[in-house]
């Protein structure tokens, strides 16, 4: 969207800046530019009202003081000091770093798992399935989990993984284990499992989309040139699927970064997440502290995305 707008703005400007144009032409160019602004206005207004303003408010409030029942518009850095309380001490990891580390861990594991599964599924549907009808059917099947809500998909795991759940019962009756496995539920394992279940589709869709755009003759050319299937995959398909991988990664990473419901439910509330910290503070009316945490979280997510876009120039690839 931005690129389109920029292009529309940039084009009429070019002649005006270069040779002095005829007065009529300049007027036309100006009109066109105004038109472009008008066209971009509705989206701009929506963005300003529902994105920029709340964000600025959050930023402002994060510097305010508060007590039990009101927030006081006076500048303070205390909220940020509280966020990083004990972080400089060094001996033991402070709460915030520990929380981010745990969140980051889930991000990495979740990302790697969804990427592997997502890429494989997309590859299968895009290259192995020959008929377009079958591709559509299989692709739709991938979206079936979306027919129920996030929370229900998550909670459905609990009776399965519990101490007396189906999985433990099955393993015990098969004689594979003597005592039920406790680590199946309310553990890192169950959290990652839920993330994979919930988020893999966000990987499949953009990667599949990228793959469908790959010119099949490139693959034929690679085969003709003597490439093995693995070489084709690695040297042709993966590089050309990069935009899809990048978009999918951004989806998955931001989803996991901001999540607290999945970590809460599947982790038995025993695993910290940044979102949960913010929620607890909100429920105790500590809005400025929550705002400060939100700003720090925003910064962390932005850093992650900047790092990603360093790896892949999304605009060029699209």
């Amino acid at each position, binding site marked *: 969207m931005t690129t389109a707008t920029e292009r529309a703005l940039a084009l009429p400007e070019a002649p005006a800046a270069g040779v002095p144009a005829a007065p009529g032409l300049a007027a036309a160019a100006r009109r066109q530019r105004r038109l472009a602004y008008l066209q971009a206005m509705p989206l701009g207004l929506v963005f300003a009202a529902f994105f920029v303003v709340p964000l600025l408010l959050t930023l402002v409030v994060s510097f305010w003081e508060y007590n*039990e*029942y*009101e927030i006081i518009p006076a500048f303070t850095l205390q909220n940020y000091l*509280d966020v990083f*309380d004990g972080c400089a001490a060094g001996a033991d990891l402070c*709460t915030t770093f*520990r*929380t981010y580390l*745990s969140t980051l861990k889930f991000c990495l594991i979740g990302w790697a798992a969804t990427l592997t599964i997502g890429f494989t599924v997309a590859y299968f549907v895009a290259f192995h399935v020959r008929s377009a009808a079958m591709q559509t059917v299989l692709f739709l099947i991938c979206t079936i989990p979306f027919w129920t809500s996030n929370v229900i998909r998550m909670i459905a795991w*609990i*009776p399965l993984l*519990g*101490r*007396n*759940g189906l999985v433990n019962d099955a393993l015990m009756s098969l004689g594979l284990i003597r005592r039920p496995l*406790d680590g199946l*539920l*309310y553990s890192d394992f169950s959290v990652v499992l839920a993330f994979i279940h919930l988020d893999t589709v966000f990987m499949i869709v953009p990667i599949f989309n990228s793959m469908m755009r790959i010119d099949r003759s490139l693959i034929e050319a690679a085969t003709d040139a003597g490439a093995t299937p693995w070489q084709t995959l690695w040297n042709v398909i993966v590089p050309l699927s990069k935009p899809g991988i990048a978009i999918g990664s951004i989806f998955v990473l931001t989803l996991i970064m901001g999540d607290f419901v999945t970590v*809460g439910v599947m982790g*038995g*509330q*025993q*695993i*910290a997440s940044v979102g*949960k*910290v913010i929620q*607890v*503070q909100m*429920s*105790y*009316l*500590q809005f400025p*502290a929550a705002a400060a945490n939100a700003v720090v979280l925003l910064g962390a997510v932005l850093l992650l995305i900047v790092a990603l876009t360093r790896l892949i120039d999304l605009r060029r690839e699209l």
Partner: protein
Amino acid sequence: MTDTPNTTGPRLSRRTLLQGAAGLAGAGAITGFPAVIAAEPVTLRYLGTAVNQSGDIARKVKEDLGITIEYIPVVTDEVSKRVVTQPNSFDIVDSEYFSLKKLLPSGNLVGMDARRIKNADKITPVFTKGEVAGRKIGDQGTAPKKVFYLEGPTSTKFAASPTEWITLIPTTYNADTLGIRPDLIKRPITSWKELLNPEFKGRASILNIPSIGIMDAAMVVEATGDYTYPDKGNMTKAEIDRTMKVLIEAKRAGQFRAFWQDFNESVNLMASGETVIQSMWSPAVTKVRSQGVACTYQPLKEGYRAWASGFGLPKTLTGRKLDAAYDFVNWFLSGWAGAYLNRQGYYSAVLETARAHMAPDEWSFWMEGKPAAQDIKAPDGTVMEKAGAVRDGGSFESRMGAVACWNSVMDENTYMVRKWNEFIAA
């Protein structure tokens, strides 16, 4: 109580409202009604947790007073948030007493005029004096008697001695303790310290609501004889650190299976056998039992952690709505609602009016701790307790009389919340 099963929402459906309205309109046209009802019907927006927000109560109020109750069911934290930030979004609030420390300074609530509350002098001394049957009960934390009276109608200061201005008229209260699975523990449990007993490693749970969870932990610390708090409900920073250290050690040792956040989570943990001992709320124990799973609301020698909630009025309420709110509160104390709540295992504010609305054997089971003469049924008719059963913890006197502390907001609340987050991250 903080989070509660929302069983009430659907009952007050649009249809019942419409039916009520239609009936009213039709009848009014023919026979004429008493002044209150003949005028435009009053609707009260009732903000609170779902504990008392029963469809049955709303229906009965409509029948008796012609007032329509519109429930706004939210969790406890959300109640406080609404009172502070959106005082115009409700006409009557059902809030916990411990929230008052946060709510009153906002100036959004007013003292209720005791002279307009018919049964004000019959409210149980648990609230007015902190006594049960003439004996003082524990008053650590935000005991209701500390925040019951205001110095004036619009004062934001709590009065030390009784005045005419009441902050909240009590709706329900109860004494909380640990729930256990006797079939899985197979030995008597008598002390709070069992919660952190390594014997139950990986099978214990506490609730993930900082201000309440830390008090349960404090009960454990005291039970182990480690430390005696001057006031568990208002710890110093050092005391918070000490308590959290105990919790963190237990967590790192794998004592807890999970923490629970709402009513249903606590029921599921217990019913599925994930946990065998955990902090719990009385109706949650009842629900586990109604699934055919043995569960005891275990009285412990160190006593109970109590909570209480009550009706407050927003400053903005005037005219007919204000009158209607007083009518409703008076009706609530007049017995029917009290009996209804007592039958669910809560306690009501005015015991004698509630007693008049309960069958003698119901009263002796719920309030006197005697064996049930016949099956005890829930308001919807399902059997809650078989004949011969005795209520866990016994009579009103032995339960409320053994209260050790009350849910509270500490002065060091901000620090406590930060430490709690540290505990969760540990």
